[in-house]
């Protein structure tokens, strides 16, 4: 553990030298690979998931995408690299970049597609029926009703995809690309345990920060009515009990004997998100 701290504390590792990039540069490279893969995967899977979910047609595409999950990403990366390298040799990093990005896109696609699809499909039939019944067009139903309600699952798909891509972008260094994986494989090759584990720790921290950022974006984008984060604040005292009494007093339906019963008036909070990360 000591070696890791020594490596992480060495300022030279952060700034880098003329010939070797510093940690900052590698983080930037790692993030760039991740962002490109997520944007491409999202650009394909998100609209596709919305349309498939909205129409309910061609759901087999979702199953096919789910089948992609069983592809070993390292194998795919090396296969693509071996295939691509004769074609683009001599064009700088493209020989590493193209196979890496394709492999990462394939990795990110299923989670985003399956969750977006499930999110739209999971919108209650009564809600969809009401939306059409009041005269919304198909497009309005999709964007004003289905999408806002699908957002928690969409986000859980994107977050899951982001985690997997950040984790797997590490292997890009194995075929010769930059990124934080550089430290892992260089450290391994030169038996520098501090560098190796230091790189691993940095990947973990980066994954955590990106997940946190996406969680924040999710918090501001998803309606509180969907996430179930209702304001429990009420004037003074225990917000919860204050709310319950306020409800009981103002509730015209609660003329039944259950009126004072907290269990009867306290609305059941909808759990945030749903299911395991990539179970969608």
């Amino acid at each position: 553990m000591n070696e890791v701290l020594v490596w992480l504390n060495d300022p030279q590792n952060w700034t880098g030298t003329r010939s070797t990039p510093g940690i900052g540069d590698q983080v930037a490279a790692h993030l760039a690979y991740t962002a490109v893969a997520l944007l491409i995967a999202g650009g394909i899977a998100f609209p596709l998931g919305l349309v498939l979910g909205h129409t309910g047609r061609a759901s087999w595409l979702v199953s096919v995408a789910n089948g992609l999950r069983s592809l070993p990403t390292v194998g795919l990366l090396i296969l693509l690299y071996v295939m691509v390298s004769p074609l683009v040799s001599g064009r700088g990093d493209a020989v590493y970049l193209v196979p890496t990005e394709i492999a990462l896109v394939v990795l990110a696609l299923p989670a985003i597609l399956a969750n977006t699809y499930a999110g739209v499909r999971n919108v209650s039939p009564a809600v969809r029926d009401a939306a059409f019944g009041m005269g919304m067009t198909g497009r309005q139903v999709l964007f004003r009703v289905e999408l806002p309600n699908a957002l928690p699952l969409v986000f859980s798909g994107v977050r899951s995809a982001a985690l997997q891509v950040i984790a797997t972008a590490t292997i890009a260094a194995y075929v010769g690309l930059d990124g934080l994986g550089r430290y892992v494989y260089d450290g391994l090759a030169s038996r520098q345990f501090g560098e190796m584990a230091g790189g691993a720790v940095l990947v973990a921290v980066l994954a955590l920060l990106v997940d946190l950022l996406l969680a924040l974006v999710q918090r501001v984008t998803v309606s509180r009515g969907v996430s179930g984060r209702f304001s429990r604040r009420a004037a003074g005292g225990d917000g919860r009990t204050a709310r319950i009494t306020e409800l009981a007093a103002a509730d015209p339906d609660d003329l039944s004997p259950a009126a004072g019963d907290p269990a009867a008036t306290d609305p059941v909070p909808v759990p945030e998100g749903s299911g395991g990360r990539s179970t969608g």
Partner: protein
Amino acid sequence: MTSAAGSAPWDLFGYFADHREQVLELLWSHTWLSVLPVVVGLLVALPIGWLARRYRWAYPPIVSVTGLLYTIPSLALFVIMPTLLGTQILDPLNVVAALTVYTVALLVRVVADGLAAVPEDVLQAATAMGLTRLQLLRMVQLPLAVPVIAAGLRVATVANVSLVAIAATIGIPQLGQLFITGFQLSVSGPYYPPIVLGIVLCVALALLLDRLIVLSARLLTPWQRVVTAR
């Protein structure tokens, strides 16, 4: 390592014939490296998930901590494990431990949510019949949570088969080794057979394990078959 067979993707059968013993050995290590963490992970996740369901206050911290664990990249875990366990860097135990952590992280929430999905009136009825807490868990909650837990197991297992392969890049042998071999043999031109063979075996293993879980879940929940058969 070069063989009599050619270097095209469809020469994987020839490659397999030439390296049968070695490939089967890699397949076997890949299998136990993928399965053992799922088994151990499930055994660990069950009581933790139950706690998170049983005590309301325990749910948020447990789900947050396991969620955090889940964000740690597997390769990072493989590399960090030796520091935590005092193992050698090339010890396969690192992979098992790391993937167990990963599986637990995934399954705890699944178990908790699966137990929570058991309808309250069923629980009330069972409690009213005089079942103890343990009987309730064994006879009612667990059986009814099987479909949800099985879904979580499928995700964890399929992910593990893919993740185990990554460990080959730091030198732990299993099917991922075939990719490394192909990579190293492709210096002067593409040499596909081991790479394609590795992918095919990985996918086959993932699908086989996936089917096994589906089948066992179906055997454990005969009442679901009645419903879907209609």
